């Protein structure tokens, strides 16, 4: 991010070459080693959080139906791969020359690009390999994206398949500890679905306002934030555009805002990032 290397997990304020801290405890004489390097203002507001930021240097992954790379509102991709799972359960990752099969991924990419024009976008396509095995491909795609070390993964999709819930949960947690933030669409139908319900991800539902930077903290989770999700103009297939609604499109708004924040404050952990989101939400003090 920016020009500096991304901090390693647990590397805050550690002396170069010094022994890592024990993972589960903090000896008395070690407390100063985890002093946080950044100064937090008395009041966190949007100016502090992302003022002047374009998201530059932040790597965002769109886990979806693919992204049309040549669309002017997408503005190019860092990488695009497609995921398949063979008969032995092995994941196959290949360069994607198909683009987008439904328009959905392109729309999500365009929203992130509009909010954070400087960020880097990549596509991991997990749809369009036939209907069978979509759950396994989704898991394999997410695992690949986490392994790639993206800063943010936009997941405007969910699965209702219970057998996948435990593995998804594990993946979401491992992403959280590796500083990859999953931003996931909440389901707006009364069904159990994943991964948005896991507390290690940022879950997003829709509001009806037009401001792309208006987002609300929800004091009644599991949905944590509401962002713009109704009547959103987005890029669509064939270089065209469309007007769309749904939580799918609220999610990339939050992904874009996270990219702005992380570009300005690359040291933030997912926990801290969620706090900044909370403090700068439209219905919380810093949102003014």
């Amino acid at each position, binding site marked *: 991010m920016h020009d500096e290397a991304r901090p390693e997990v647990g590397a805050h304020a550690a002396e170069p070459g010094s022994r890592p801290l024990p993972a589960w405890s903090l000896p008395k004489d070690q407390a100063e080693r985890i002093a946080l390097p950044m100064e937090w203002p008395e009041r966190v507001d949007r100016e502090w959080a992302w003022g002047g930021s374009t998201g530059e240097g932040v790597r965002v992954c769109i886990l979806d139906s693919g992204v049309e790379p040549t669309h002017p509102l997408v503005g190019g991709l860092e990488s695009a791969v497609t995921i398949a799972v063979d008969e032995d359960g092995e994941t196959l990752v290949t360069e994607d020359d198909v683009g987008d099969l439904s328009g959905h991924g392109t729309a999500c990419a365009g929203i992130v690009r509009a909010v954070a024009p400087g960020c880097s976008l990549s596509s991991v396509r997990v*749809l369009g390999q036939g209907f069978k095995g979509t759950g396994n491909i989704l898991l394999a795609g997410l695992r690949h994206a986490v392994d790639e070390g993206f800063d943010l993964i936009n997941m405007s999709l969910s699965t209702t398949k219970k057998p996948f819930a435990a593995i998804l949960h594990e993946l979401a947690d491992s992403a959280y500890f590796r500083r990859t933030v999953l931003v996931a669409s909440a389901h707006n139908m009364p*069904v159990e679905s994943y991964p948005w319900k896991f507390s290690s991800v940022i879950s997003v539902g829709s509001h009806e306002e037009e401001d792309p930077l208006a987002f609300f903290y929800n004091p009644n989770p599991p949905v944590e934030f509401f962002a713009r999700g109704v009547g959103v103009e987005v890029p669509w297939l064939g270089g065209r555009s469309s007007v769309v*609604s749904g939580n*799918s499109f609220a999610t990339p708004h939050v992904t874009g805002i996270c990219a702005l924040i992380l570009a300005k404050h690359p040291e933030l952990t997912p926990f801290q990032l969620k706090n900044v989101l909370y403090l700068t939400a439209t219905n919380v003090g810093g949102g003014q």
Partner: protein
Amino acid sequence: MTDDGELRAAVASGVVGSTESFQELLGAIVHVARSIFGAKASSILLLDEEAGELVFEAVVGEGEESLLGTRFPADHGIAGWVLATRTPLVIEDVEQDPRHARDVAEGTGYVPKGIMAAPLLTEDAALGVLSVLDRPEQSLFSLQEMELLGLFANQAAIAVDLLQRARHAERILQDEGDLAVVARLAAAVNALEDERREAGLRLLRALAATLGDAGG
């Protein structure tokens, strides 16, 4: 479904014969959906998992006659996305999208401009997609409508689930599976009247008791 469950379903279906009623229910759902949203058309697409295709199971409005029974790949287009991701979605000007037009409007001459689509979900499966095409252009889409669409989709999912169970049972009745004979017996005895029915039931009870003894 367990063997026992299959048998029960087959017997129930043999007695009730309900496939048509569930199909009518699906038809009624798309009718109400179209009229509540003031839309030009509404349809229910069912997933044929074996073939990897979506099939038009109920259609009302534009394309009503030509679309019923037609199929397209389940992993393509907007319906495919909704199905695979189990997520509802509203798009207000699909007309511009040539690929979507090819998928859904092939052979009908009708290319929808707007589509609202929601997955038909049971506890852990996506059975198909409910779609509502071309709401009135002047009305702005609201979250309330999205919720309403979800409610319709839930109702449709229950109807589809029942329809699929009934079809499954029907297949068992039609000589598929070892236990078809039991379902046919149930249907036959149920069709008898008065003394013959009583005699038939006595016979079945005796058979059940004998088999019970044999089974230990």
